[in-house]
């Protein structure tokens, strides 16, 4: 599946996670066509794409987003203990 690369349309703390998931875990990223939200598509395509906030958001929003990524099979943080 073709993927876009995350740019300034998403906050930095999200960009880092998206880049890792694209490069290391086979996820895909879709920039919005028009004014919508970008989408992060799980490597397991049976899982729903996750919307990505476009503006800097609260720590709780980032937490909820990361929890959703883990729920859909993504790994973050990637480091081994």
């Amino acid at each position, binding site marked *: 599946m073709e993927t876009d690369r995350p740019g300034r349309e998403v906050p930095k703390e999200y960009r880092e996670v998206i880049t890792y998931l694209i490069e290391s875990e086979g996820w895909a990223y879709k920039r919005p066509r028009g004014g*919508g*939200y970008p989408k992060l598509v799980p490597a397991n395509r049976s899982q729903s*794409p996750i919307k990505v*906030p476009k503006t800097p*958001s609260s720590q709780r929003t980032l937490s909820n987003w*990361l*929890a959703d990524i883990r729920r*859909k099979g993504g*790994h973050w943080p990637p480091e081994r*203990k």
Partner: protein
Amino acid sequence: MRTVSGAQQEQEEREGVSVMDWFSVHLETRAPTAQAPRVLAEDAAADRLMDLLAGYDGIVSADAGSWDATISVRAPTTSEAVLKGAEIIESEASKAGMPRWPAVRVEAVLQDIVDEENARPALPDIVSAPEAAEILGVSPQRLHQIATDNEAFPEPVYELRAGNLWLRAAVEAFASRERKPGRPRSAQVAAG
């Protein structure tokens, strides 16, 4: 719009009377079997739901036959967080024009616990045969023998063409058990 304002929260915390905690509430819906996966949750509706849930730290996922959302709410108990969170998500989803599919899962987790879980590395710490041999202080050949002959040795979590992989914790636990003094010689891991 939040149900509890930041100012109210600050006042509660100053007075030390807060009995409300933050919870992360996740609700998942699925289209009835007869519809799925032909029915698609409209992308524009999912975007509208993201906007409507922004004040609740919301995140939305949507695809053919299912959609889900996660928000943060303040509530005195987990069960009240489930009810409150589900009500907010369903109400806002209706306004956004999301499909009215039945909820198949609702869960509330203390936000602190979510943060702890998010901070923990999600990939298991695994080791190959040379690393497992190093943990046991034996040669790779001896490791192979132990893995084959000793029933107490952990099962590999992956069996690849390139070799087996084990959980590091399982190999370390085996090593510490086998190094205990006083075990019968036949059960000990003797360096090969």
